[in-house]
């Protein structure tokens, strides 16, 4: 049976034996897949240098639906995305987006999330350094929204009561967005000032102008996103790339 081809992005790779790699792929047509790339570490491997983290190409997969690990026959590289290695903030944002895609994309085809992931990596690769922080936040919020977890910002996440615009937002990560005053009682909420609420609305939107942050506000927004993600998506699992991106431990050095 001939292999199935699909656009794919490498979300992770680990050594398997002396000469092979197991790669984790986000594919456009087959969802998230793991595959064995036999001989990928040999000097004259047909994979060459193509199986790098976050690189994109066309994967040729031998599929057996009864198996968790498929066989990668070839990977025709379309973008190595080497620009993501230009600095650590850029790489950490890209890795965080890759981790969200890996952990939370469905096992079946989901072209919208694949296209968003691909577009996000392209944007991050070429964006100016000063825009990386806010672009990373937007791409992460957009990705969870496309995956069906958009935060409720104009209606109460519990009872659907409209939330008046340009007022402070009582944001509950556990409830999935803003709460009206009645529902907010007794819940652990973070109150976002109108300016931060507008910034969050702009981040979640695909078209609004990007907000401008100082470091303190950017850190608050990173924490808010990480808290939201952990409540809704992670089910208690570890998310090292999200933690890395959230804490930015390299800044204090």
């Amino acid at each position: 049976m001939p292999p199935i081809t699909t656009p794919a992005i490498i979300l992770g790779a680990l050594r398997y034996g002396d000469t092979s790699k197991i790669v984790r792929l986000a594919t456009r047509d087959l969802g998230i897949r793991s595959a064995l790339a036999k001989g990928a570490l040999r000097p004259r491997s047909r994979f060459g240098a193509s199986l790098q983290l976050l690189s994109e190409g066309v994967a040729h997969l031998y599929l057996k639906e009864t198996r968790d690990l498929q066989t990668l026959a070839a990977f025709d590289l379309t973008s190595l995305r080497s620009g993501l290695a230009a600095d650590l903030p850029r790489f950490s944002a890209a890795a965080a987006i890759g981790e969200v895609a890996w952990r939370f994309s469905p096992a079946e085809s989901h072209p919208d999330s694949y296209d968003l992931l691909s577009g996000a990596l392209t944007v991050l690769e070429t964006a100016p350094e000063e825009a990386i922080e806010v672009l990373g936040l937007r791409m992460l919020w957009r990705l969870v929204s496309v995956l069906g977890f958009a935060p409720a910002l104009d209606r109460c996440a519990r009872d659907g009561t409209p939330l008046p615009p340009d007022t402070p937002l009582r944001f509950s990560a556990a409830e999935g967005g803003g709460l009206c005053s009645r529902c907010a009682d007794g819940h652990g909420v973070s109150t976002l000032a109108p300016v931060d609420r507008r910034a969050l609305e702009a981040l979640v939107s695909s078209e609004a102008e990007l907000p401008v942050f100082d470091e303190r506000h950017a850190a608050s927004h990173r924490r808010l996103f990480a808290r939201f993600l952990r409540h809704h998506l992670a089910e208690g699992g570890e998310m090292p790339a999200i933690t890395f991106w959230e804490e930015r431990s390299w800044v204090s050095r």
Partner: protein
Amino acid sequence: MRAIEALVTELARLPGIGRKTAQRLTFHLLQQGPEESSRLARALDTVATTVRACAECGYVAEEERCEFCRDARRDAGLICVVEEAASVQAVERSTEFRGRYHVLGGRLSPLDGIGPESLRIDSLLERVRGGGVREVILATNPSMEGEVTATYLHQVLAGEGLRVTRLARGLPMGGDLEYVDGVTLAHALLARQDIVG
């Protein structure tokens, strides 16, 4: 048997060794007789008790400093930075390098939670600031994580008043253009050199 099971389990924890291979190795040792197994056990024990990380560069050493850091004939002004101790042996095989090493103990990898604080970057800066270092060669692997580690180190070392270089990437000696992948060929074209002479 519990003793055999314990050995199989320990061997199977080694990289590249699965459970079947671990069982094969275990039964091979049993067939060889007790002297063979004892010799292996003594060698493992000696390594475990005498080998440590070099206090200066992080490479393996049986004394406080490794063979390269103790060797006065090696150029202390030239430091080659590698991800893992095993890479030192790879660079040594070139026979071209006569400087010293610095082993980071890994590479930056957000997906594994490895940040700069997990690597031996502070001790690299200490060595550089200690004086006498004129060039640092970044010999991290040519992977995405290796590249971002190199760019991060380049930024950290900027302003220290020394030359920071990166290993070149390109065509393997004895190779054939027909079999070289596009990425490597693109790097080779970008890093092309004038013919001298």
